């Protein structure tokens, strides 16, 4: 039998678990400001996560999906994207979103079960959180199709989890993107688990980077806790996309250091040893060490950063808790640009019986 096609998947790592450079560093790694900005955002995410979990535990927030452990991936993707690009997130990629302008208040408002949280003042064209797993990936392909049709030098970025790659929609989106060489990057955040299902049960694929091969789309894997590697790989993929060479599947290997959501108890299914080991590879300390080695960072900067983050978070919580109340018209206001007349009657009924339903 002769061989008619061959494929390879590369792996990128630039920073080891101790924060030592272990590859050719990209320019931004030597840019103190750039590195500080990224690290600061990672810390903000980590502290925000703790706060949000705390709000949920104390009844002041609904179910919340934490991001602890994913900060390097999320922030690096944000840093690699341009403001005019469009993001199609899943539900926990706050690092990318905040980088792009989504506010902490909006995030809290969303998880409080309030649609106003998805009306980002910031990246107006970014998609909101997407709960039906996988269904955001064709959106990104469609956005990229619009960019292509209009010859705009913009890219779409879709996130998806390791579990999400089992959804057919993901493959359909990749296939379209491949066939049309669309400017889109699919970022698979492989955090080891889809709620209780570990990667090995989800798929026989050795990597998630290879998920595009069947549809003619190349892939690359990187250490998702290595902010340099993720940003580098993303910049390359975005550059490829922007220059008309088509889509890429980027796999970022990280770990979900939290429960799946605050409604989940990971100790039911996840070995403690695995979690402990994963903490050894977590992204914040690694980045900080790298910056300290280069003289970009020190204890006093750290203290100032943390104080600043806490203040930001407090302000956001305050803004969130003091947002104007929504009345029952909220349910009807944005269903249609031109609402059918009959809805008016129901709007009146809703006003009459607001907040009396079972729960």
């Amino acid at each position, binding site marked *: 039998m002769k061989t008619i096609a061959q494929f390879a998947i590369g792996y990128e790592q630039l920073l080891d678990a101790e924060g030592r450079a272990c590859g050719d560093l990209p320019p931004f790694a030597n840019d103190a400001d750039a590195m500080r900005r990224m690290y600061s955002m990672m810390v903000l995410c980590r502290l925000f996560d703790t706060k949000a979990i705390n709000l949920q535990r104390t009844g002041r927030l609904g179910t919340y999906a934490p991001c602890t452990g994913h900060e390097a991936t999320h922030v690096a993707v944000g840093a690699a994207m341009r403001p005019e690009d469009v993001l199609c997130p899943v539900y926990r990629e706050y690092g990318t979103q905040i980088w792009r302008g989504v506010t902490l208040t909006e995030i809290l408002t969303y998880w409080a079960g309030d649609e*106003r949280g998805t009306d980002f003042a910031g990246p107006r064209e970014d998609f909101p959180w997407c709960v039906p797993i996988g269904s955001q990936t064709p959106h990104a392909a*469609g956005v990229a199709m619009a960019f292509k049709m209009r010859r705009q030098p913009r890219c779409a970025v879709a996130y998806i989890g390791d579990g999400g790659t089992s959804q057919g929609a993901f493959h*359909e989106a990749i296939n379209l993107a491949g066939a049309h060489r669309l400017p889109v990057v699919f970022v698979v955040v492989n955090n080891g688990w889809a709620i209780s299902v570990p990667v090995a049960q989800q798929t026989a694929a050795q990597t998630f980077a290879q998920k595009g091969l069947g549809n003619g789309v190349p892939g690359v894997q990187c250490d998702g806790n290595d902010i340099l590697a993720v940003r580098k790989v993303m910049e390359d993929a975005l550059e490829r996309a922007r220059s008309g060479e088509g889509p890429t599947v980027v796999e970022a290997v990280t770990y979900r250091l939290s429960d799946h959501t605050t409604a989940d108890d990971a100790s039911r299914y996840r070995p403690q040893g695995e979690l402990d080991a994963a903490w050894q590879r977590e992204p914040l300390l690694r980045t900080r060490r790298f910056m300290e080695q280069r003289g970009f960072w020190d204890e006093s900067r750290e203290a100032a950063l943390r104080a600043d983050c806490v203040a930001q978070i407090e302000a956001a919580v305050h803004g969130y808790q003091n947002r104007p109340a929504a009345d029952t018209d909220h349910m009807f206001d944005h269903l249609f*640009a031109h609402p*059918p007349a009959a809805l008016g009657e129901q709007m009146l009924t809703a006003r009459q019986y607001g907040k009396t339903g079972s729960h």
Partner: protein
Amino acid sequence: MPRVTLVEGINLALARALADDPDVVLIGEDIGVNGGVFRATAGLQQRFGALRVQDTPLAEGLIGGMAVGMASQGLKVVAEIQFMGFLYPALDQIANHMARMRNRTRGRLTCPVVMRMPHGGGIHAPEHHSESLEVLLAHHAGLRVLCPSSPARAYGLLLAAIRDPDPVMFLEPTRLYRLAKQDVLDDGRALPLDEAVVLREGDDVTLVTWGAMVHDTLRAADELMNEKISCEVIDLSSLSPIDHDTILESVGHTGRLVIVHEAARNAGLGAEIAATVAEKALYDLLAPVVRVTGYDTVMPYFAMERSYILSVARIVDAAKQTLQG
């Protein structure tokens, strides 16, 4: 004024929309060079290019999803689902995203998408090619659902659908695609949304129907007229929202209501009409409402379709029944 079939009326409307608005994009399976399996998009790719009239990969879920993405960028996507039985994989995108994007983002992102698809049976097609699934769409808030019954209405409603800034499901009665021709002025005029149409005025019984059954219902009305029974025939046209006022007014006048639809009876759209009358016009009713519908069986393979699709005779008998009741 060109004399055209219903499918040609659709073609005219699509061409007009593509010519008028550079943001209009057509996507679907085999809609390009092939012009669609029913030829609704014939000639359009040649005229407007392979990006504006785009053959997609074979995946309805993708069609729904890419439409959402494109629409979020302000493109007005007109997507074709080749047959209504293949709508299912697109329902997730339709229900979970198209219908909700405006609401969930408080108007920040919108979804100006038209999903066109053949509706109903009667053309001797294989399995899954003859479905009437309007209720699956109509039940979802945030969508409009239209079903034209003539070339002119197809033309005008499709333009209205494309120009509307929200998602519209556009069901095209397969059986009518080439059934008859009608003069259609290609003047770019849209018909109003959300309105039922009284096709024929009458005094004794109100017959409400839509799509291909409009024709059988009109024939039934003719037959009934021979027996001096005067029917008011309403083409529902907008399957969601339903123009209940027009129906209620008619029932207020006739006191009798027969609802005719090809879809299965159980939880069909006829139920919504009957229920609303039972709520809002009970005292107008001189006889029980009658629904003349498809059976609660799966749509049979086509050898049996003439026995599944309801007949003029059934409509006539139902109308007479209301006159006895």
